[in-house]
């Protein structure tokens, strides 16, 4: 009883609709013309025309990260697909669910070096969670639904579906999203109960416990954040977070020690170093977090909750691994904790908190205020005041400004903080903001960027203008690749090789040329007004602030150093970086 057949292009559209997709970020070209034809004059799915395919993937990431739903990308073959590669790699590193549909030359031309042919499957194999080449329109619908299943289940990630042009033109049957299990990919979501009990036992026995949460909590969904909050409250233990996990736990909560890692808070890093039980929740012991491995958190027993079995014992051996979805595992842990009426040792906990309070007194984010030129920290503090209680979404690019944003902004909820963590992709901020703004048209979306990063995907201003997306670009202009300059200062005797940004454009004129508003401040006294004006803007705006060129980002654990070898602000002591450390990234 075969129902009427559809063309491949129609099947693509119908499966997207059936998967609940509302928006596709894309860019047309010869190989995807049949799909673009199917998209023409329909109103089920909105297409956002980006200006570069990398922008499409970052926009889809921004959409996905800010909604918890998969982001969808449509690009043409050859250069369209290769331009998407950075975005795909970014999504893989940060576990963002993205479905990227790539055009391909017609089947009979594959392998002939045809015009705009690229081995997309070969090129994207190592930078996707999985990829598919559709060889027959008969298989198309099933593959489309499989792609969504794979991208969103287990540890999320990008999936490429490569679509030869003839497969789009030929007809085949449509099948809906099936509920049946995938034949081979069945990630474990429930944690092993005896490990969970063992973990609860260990936590209850802790004298210096510490929660260490990561992006996995955000990925697991808002429910996981709620459970994390409750569990932390129930125990009364302190908590720190990775860059990717910010927002899963409220930054303003007393229990929150701030971000951990290379530019993490003094108290968070020392707590990591000194704790006796570490509860890692959806984080992966990344090198930016651990610092020198043989000196990392030597005093603690470690519990590690992760949906990806390959994250367990990858960098750091743990004592109690629990493979499963963070939300499910926390739910079970909390049940066991409550039903067995566990409590932390009061005295021990009080003295742990007293130690932490000492570390906090160091006030590691204190900075010297700028007299004639604004300090970036001050700009971000001012931004924080302006967005307080406004349910804002913040994206960043990569560099010092990213770390300052992570340090000085206060996140209250998951899915509001969008940054390129694993890959550290300059050029992520603006397109990600566009994606987030598409998903949340009424909410303020702010892209905190640096002048160098901003120029890596500056063409997307045009997208923001076309779709009237009122993204607020807070441009911290230090006329340097600041983070590169900071490393050169620390590790290469102040030899600022190629890190000065010569010939910067006049960003006000850039804004003008693209048709958006601009604001400018080159004195600390103007910052408050600039940010107020930026927040009041109804359309997209570039708000540029000239900041202190020499400002560095502290605290910093130099590469190859241990947590207790942190460099603190300008008045702190400055341990030298070892030669071994200088060889690391």
């Amino acid at each position: 009883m075969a129902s009427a057949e559809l063309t491949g292009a129609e099947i693509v559209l119908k499966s997207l609709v059936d998967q609940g997709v509302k928006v596709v970020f894309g860019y047309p070209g010869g190989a995807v013309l049949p799909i673009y034809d199917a998209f023409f004059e329909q109103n089920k799915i909105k297409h956002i025309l980006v200006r570069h395919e990398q922008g499409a993937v970052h926009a889809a990431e921004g959409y996905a990260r800010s909604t918890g739903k998969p982001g969808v990308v449509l690009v043409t073959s050859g250069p369209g697909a290769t331009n998407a590669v950075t975005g795909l790699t970014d999504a893989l590193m940060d576990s963002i669910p993205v479905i990227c549909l790539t055009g391909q030359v017609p089947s009979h031309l594959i392998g002939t070096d045809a015009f705009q042919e690229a081995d997309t499957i070969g090129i994207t194999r190592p930078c996707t969670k999985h990829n598919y080449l559709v060889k027959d329109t008969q298989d198309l619908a099933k593959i489309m639904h499989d792609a969504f299943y794979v991208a969103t289940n287990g540890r999320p990630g990008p999936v490429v579906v490569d679509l030869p042009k003839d497969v789009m033109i030929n007809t085949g049957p449509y099948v809906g999203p099936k509920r049946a299990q995938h034949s081979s990919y069945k990630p474990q979501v429930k944690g092993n109960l005896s490990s969970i009990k063992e973990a609860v036992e260990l936590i209850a026995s802790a004298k210096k416990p510490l929660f260490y949460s990561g992006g996995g909590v955000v990925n697991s969904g808002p429910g996981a954040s709620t459970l994390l909050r409750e569990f932390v409250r129930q125990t009364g233990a302190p908590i720190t977070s990775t860059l990717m996990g910010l927002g899963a736990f409220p930054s303003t909560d007393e229990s929150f020690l701030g971000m951990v890692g290379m530019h993490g808070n003094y108290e968070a890093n020392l707590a990591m170093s000194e704790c006796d039980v570490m509860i890692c929740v959806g984080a992966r012991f990344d090198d930016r977090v651990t610092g020198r491995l043989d000196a990392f958190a030597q005093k603690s027993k470690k519990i590690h909750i992760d949906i990806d079995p390959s994250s367990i014992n990858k960098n750091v051996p743990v004592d109690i691994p629990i493979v499963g979805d963070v939300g499910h595992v926390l739910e079970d842990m909390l049940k066991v904790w409550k039903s067995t009426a566990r409590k932390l040792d009061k005295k021990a906990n009080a003295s742990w908190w007293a130690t932490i309070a000492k570390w906090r007194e160091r006030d590691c984010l204190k900075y010297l205020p700028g007299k004639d030129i604004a300090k970036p920290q001050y700009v971000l503090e001012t931004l924080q005041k302006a967005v307080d209680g406004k349910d804002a979404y913040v994206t960043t690019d990569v560099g010092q400004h990213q770390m300052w944003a992570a340090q000085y902004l206060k996140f209250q909820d998951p899915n509001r903080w969008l940054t390129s963590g694993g890959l550290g992709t300059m050029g992520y901020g603006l397109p990600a903001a566009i994606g987030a703004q598409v998903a949340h048209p009424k909410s303020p979306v702010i892209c905190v960027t640096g002048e160098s990063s901003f120029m890596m995907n500056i063409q997307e201003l045009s997208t923001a203008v076309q779709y009237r997306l009122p993204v607020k670009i807070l441009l911290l202009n230090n006329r340097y690749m600041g983070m590169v300059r900071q490393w050169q200062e620390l590790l290469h005797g102040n030899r600022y090789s190629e890190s000065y940004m010569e010939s910067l454009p006049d960003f006000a004129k850039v804004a003008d040329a693209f048709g958006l508003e601009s604001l400018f401040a080159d004195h600390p006294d103007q910052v408050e007004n600039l940010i107020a004006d930026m927040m009041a803007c109804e359309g997209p705006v570039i708000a540029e602030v000239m900041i202190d060129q020499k400002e560095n980002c502290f605290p910093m654990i130099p590469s190859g150093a241990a947590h207790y070898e942190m460099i603190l602000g300008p008045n702190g002591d400055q341990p030298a970086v070892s030669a071994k450390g200088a060889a690391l990234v």
Partner: protein
Amino acid sequence: MDKMTERHTIGVLVDNEAGVLARVVGLFSGRGYNIDSLTVAEVDQNDHQSRITIVTTGTPQVIEQIKAQLGRLVPIHGVTDLTVEGPHVEREMALIKVAGGGETRVESLRIADIFRARVVDSTINSFVFEITGSTDKINSFVGLMRPLGLVDVSRTGVVAISRGDKPM
């Protein structure tokens, strides 16, 4: 070789679809794991499943990573570490061409007999032997053939299966 490294034989059941071998091999090269030997062939025509046998060396931590990384590839149905999961049988087959005449030719035949290698091709001045056994056995046979006119070696790499009545 680092004294901490171990040799493991890993069986992997995969969907026999295009590119699946590239995924496995790419995983090993991309993450810097060793492949000492790799064999693959379809083992279930109805379900289109292939079985890959990989022999690898690494520290215990790396071996654990290899299995976990393999396990998360989408078209993989199962991963089994035969080295740790109880007794198993490992076999390799090789075709070995030896050329020469006179006494060395007779000697190569005599040794082939001891190793239970079969002659599968013969000319006036050459033999092709077929030999099956452990990797060590084939290594020593090849070693013995070298001074006797060894010309070519073609080996399958290791295939392995657990002993007893259970599937992988």
